[in-house]
């Protein structure tokens, strides 16, 4: 996205606005079925490869009529809003609903007052399939298809249901945003169909800031997700698709609850996700649950031990839409939330010293999960149309960059802090923008901090830094900042130094702190995006009404050792995945022209993946690109950027890998924040060998998962591959290939997937 400079003339701005308006008009006409892709070809507005033609008056990349430079994209109106004029909204902490087990059925019962039907091991689609005429199992909104989107039968039953029986539940709705929702008091309120986000309850409107769910090991969760978006898909204000599957990135869950097994569901229906809080390696390490470090808080100062490897404890995570081919639109539209897991070592209670608790900065008013000094920061960039409504360009296949930086969905907010240690959990919940963050003190100098976790995984030893490394889409960095070095009244800025390429394909150079502080006329998301103000007292968010003062002692610590290193061992096999750009892709069925699942009529798919040096493919949910035959086998995966022009943050679902090295045999430099660190997103750049090798193993659950580029635009067009894990417990359906579910408004039907031989090691090892 090439944003016009703030110094551009009015005539240039008008030209850019006209181009955007024309694209918007085409988009609206396509949406309403008034024109087709074929019409666009005929009129020469689409190229043969399906891209928007570089026409003046249409494309932001066409030459301007007034200069030999791109037409550009108009700047988003800010309606007079200034940075740092609104407080940081804290995420909306959700209250868990206690569930009880029905001894007769084994179902999980919600409190009767809620009027919710029980949660079950088998889906309600199973009941619908067995009783198609029974109205209680039908979609009440459309009277078509099942009430639950989870596919029918044993394959999509919750794995290990009794073992990880849900103890708490949440009922949430994805739908139109509540009235008067705005990103800054000066901005206009967003229209109900511009933003679709999550709200608390069965029939709630969506709310911002996003939700925060606090999970803890030993307390499995049932998340009931209602789809309350409009039945008419065209009622979307130009972008977003009214079907969703919610991916819990990157928790250790069965495929039926991973939200990426091609199991999207429709308006009027719900989907029960069972987030098991399973600690990885529970079938292999610490199976007797005797290690206190593998545990969750019991709520009363004690611990509940769980089986598994304490070195695989997860903390900072999130959940977001994963409707294949429409993920970018839906995530951008607000289908995302934050989920943190708390454990014995990482309990978010700085005051409790039991020899297990690390006592990281957090607070101590609650037994666990304190947020007073443990703060979630969700980074996001957006663009507005001239009326201030969220704008998205559905024609781009390279990347989408916004020019308005938001933190927790507030424009450039400030936060009051005490002169003490704080933990920040920073999530790049952006579609294509990468970040590189530095804290600038009152004198403009970089403020040192400690890096403690990468993608929700504690590093072995805290890493002192003065700037974060590049942060790609979906990466999470946890840091501890000590504000005690400052005086009351000081202001510290969080500064983005990362320039992006205009086309959104990846990052450009990083500016110096001084340069970034001065701002970039071509990219308003560079420079300060948030401000911390050191004050002498703040009100608790954990127990409202309680006042914390600057004179209070800071009992938090950052221990020299946070966890232990997972050993690197010889692998059973190696795999190679290359991510590159091809032609139109093979996501469509050549006979019908349809994608699996359905995709936009005018979409083409330039972003592809090769497995073990074989042919390139683009995503098809009915094609397995890699198959893992058995649980517990150590594999080395090497991911390579197949071309030099684009960067890709590659995300592996379900399991984290131990990052071994970058470049062939480790000849490229690797950031200290990555070396031997567990991650689930790895950036593939355009320098050196452009490759990363990590060690990974799979276990405890099985089924259909994916690996993909987390630039959501690349992902949708369609740099994504299906991963089939035959790693379920012995005797379960998850030791066999999963039939592909194909959701329709009338119910799910199954097809038999094809398996790429280059991804299937069965019979060879």
């Amino acid at each position, binding site marked *: 996205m090439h944003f016009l400079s703030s110094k551009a003339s009015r005539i240039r701005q008008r030209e850019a606005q006209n181009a955007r308006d*024309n694209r918007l*008009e085409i988009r609206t*006409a396509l949406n309403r079925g008034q*024109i087709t892709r074929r019409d666009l*070809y005929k*009129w*020469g*507005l689409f*190229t*043969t*490869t399906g891209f928007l*033609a570089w*026409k*003046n*008056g249409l494309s932001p990349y*066409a030459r301007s009529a007034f200069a030999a430079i791109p037409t550009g994209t108009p700047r988003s109106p800010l309606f007079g809003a200034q940075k740092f004029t609104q407080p940081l909204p804290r995420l909306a902490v959700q209250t868990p609903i206690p569930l009880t087990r029905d001894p007769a059925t084994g179902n999980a019962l919600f409190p009767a007052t809620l009027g919710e039907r029980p949660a079950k091991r088998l889906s309600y689609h199973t009941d619908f399939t067995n009783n198609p005429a029974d109205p209680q199992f039908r979609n009440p909104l459309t009277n078509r298809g099942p009430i639950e989107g989870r596919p029918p039968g044993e394959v999509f039953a919750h794995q290990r249901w009794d073992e990880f029986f849900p103890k708490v539940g949440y009922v949430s709705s994805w739908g139109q945003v509540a009235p008067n929702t705005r990103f800054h008091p000066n901005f206009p309120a967003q229209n109900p169909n511009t933003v679709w986000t999550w709200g608390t309850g069965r029939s709630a409107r969506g709310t911002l800031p996003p939700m925060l769910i606090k999970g803890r090991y030993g307390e499995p969760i049932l998340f009931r997700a209602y789809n309350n978006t409009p039945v008419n898909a065209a009622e979307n204000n130009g972008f977003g698709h009214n079907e969703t599957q919610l991916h819990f990135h990157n928790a250790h869950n069965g495929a039926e609850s991973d939200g990426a097994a091609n199991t999207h569901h429709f308006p009027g229906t719900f989907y029960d996700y069972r987030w098991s809080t399973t600690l990885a390696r529970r079938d292999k390490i610490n199976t007797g649950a005797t290690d206190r470090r593998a545990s969750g808080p019991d709520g009363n100062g004690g611990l509940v031990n769980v089986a598994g490897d304490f070195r695989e404890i997860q903390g900072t995570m999130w959940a977001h839409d994963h409707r294949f081919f429409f993920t970018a639109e839906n995530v951008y539209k607000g289908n995302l939330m934050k989920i943190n897991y708390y454990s014995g070592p990482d309990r978010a209670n700085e005051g409790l010293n039991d020899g297990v608790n690390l006592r990281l900065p957090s607070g101590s008013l609650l037994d666990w999960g304190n947020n007073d000094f443990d703060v979630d920061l969700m980074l996001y960039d957006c663009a507005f149309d001239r009326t201030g409504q969220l704008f998205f360009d559905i024609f781009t296949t390279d990347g989408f960059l916004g020019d308005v930086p938001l933190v927790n969905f507030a424009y450039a907010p400030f936060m009051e802090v005490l002169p003490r240690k704080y933990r920040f959990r920073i999530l790049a919940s952006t579609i294509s923008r990468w970040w590189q963050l530095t804290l600038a003190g009152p004198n403009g100098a970089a403020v040192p901090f400690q890096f403690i976790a990468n993608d929700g995984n504690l590093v072995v030893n805290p890493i002192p830094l003065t700037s974060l490394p590049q942060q790609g889409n979906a990466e999470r960095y946890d840091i501890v900042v000590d504000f005690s070095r400052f005086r009351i009244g000081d202001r510290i800025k969080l500064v983005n130094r990362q320039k992006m390429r205009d086309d959104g394909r990846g990052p450009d150079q990083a500016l110096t702190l001084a340069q970034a502080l001065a701002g970039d006329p071509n990219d308003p998301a560079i420079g300060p995006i948030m401000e911390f103000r050191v004050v002498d007292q703040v009100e608790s968010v954990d127990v409202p009404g309680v006042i914390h003062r600057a004179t209070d002692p800071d009992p938090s610590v950052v221990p020299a050792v946070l966890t232990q290193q997972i050993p690197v061992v010889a692998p059973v*096999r*190696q*795999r*190679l995945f290359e991510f*590159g*750009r*091809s*032609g*139109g*892709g*093979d996501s*469509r*069925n*050549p*006979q019908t022209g349809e994608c*699996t699942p359905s995709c936009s009529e005018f979409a083409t798919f330039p972003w*592809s993946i*090769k497995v*073990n*040096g074989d*042919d390139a*493919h683009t995503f*098809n949910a*009915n*094609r397995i690109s890699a198959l893992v035959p058995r649980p517990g086998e150590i594999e080395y995966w*090497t991911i390579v*950027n*197949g*071309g*030099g*022009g684009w960067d890709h943050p590659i995300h592996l679902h379900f399991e984290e890998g131990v990052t071994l090295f970058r470049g*062939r045999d480790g000849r490229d430099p690797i950031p200290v924040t990555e070396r031997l660190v567990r991650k689930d997103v790895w950036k593939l750049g355009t320098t050196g*060998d452009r*490759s990363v090798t990590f060690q990974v193993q799979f276990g405890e659950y099985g089924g259909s998962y994916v690996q993909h580029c987390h630039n959501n635009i690349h992902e949708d067009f369609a740099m994504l591959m299906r991963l089939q894990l035959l790693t379920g417990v012995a005797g379960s359906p998850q030791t066999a290939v999963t039939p592909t579910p194909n959701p329709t408004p009338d119910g799910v039907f199954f*097809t*038999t997937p*094809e398996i*790429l*031989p*280059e991804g*299937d*090691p*069965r019979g*060879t090892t």
Partner: protein
Amino acid sequence: MKPQRTLQKLLIAGTVAAAAAAIDGPSASAQTTSTTSTTSTTSTATSTSTATSTSAATALKKKPPRPAATPDMIAEAIQRSKARTQKFQALGIPEQFGSEEPFTFNPAAK
């Protein structure tokens, strides 16, 4: 303004010649929703003609699928990536990841 009118205006004002009128949707191969196996043929293409030529070329040099990677395969992938980048930088020709272009792997290269 009605969409049709806007589109007509754009056609008149455009600096790029209109694309061919009746080009159908993008081609694809190796994809079905049944049990069909896909063990061969190139699967990415930008048009019918390139699909045909690429498919034929690839079929000739097609190797049996390898379900695991070797160090040489990884080295080759890295070398190919660099070659694509160099070509792009030298000629401005966008890389074609899916269609293999002339390339000689040098196992000894570091």
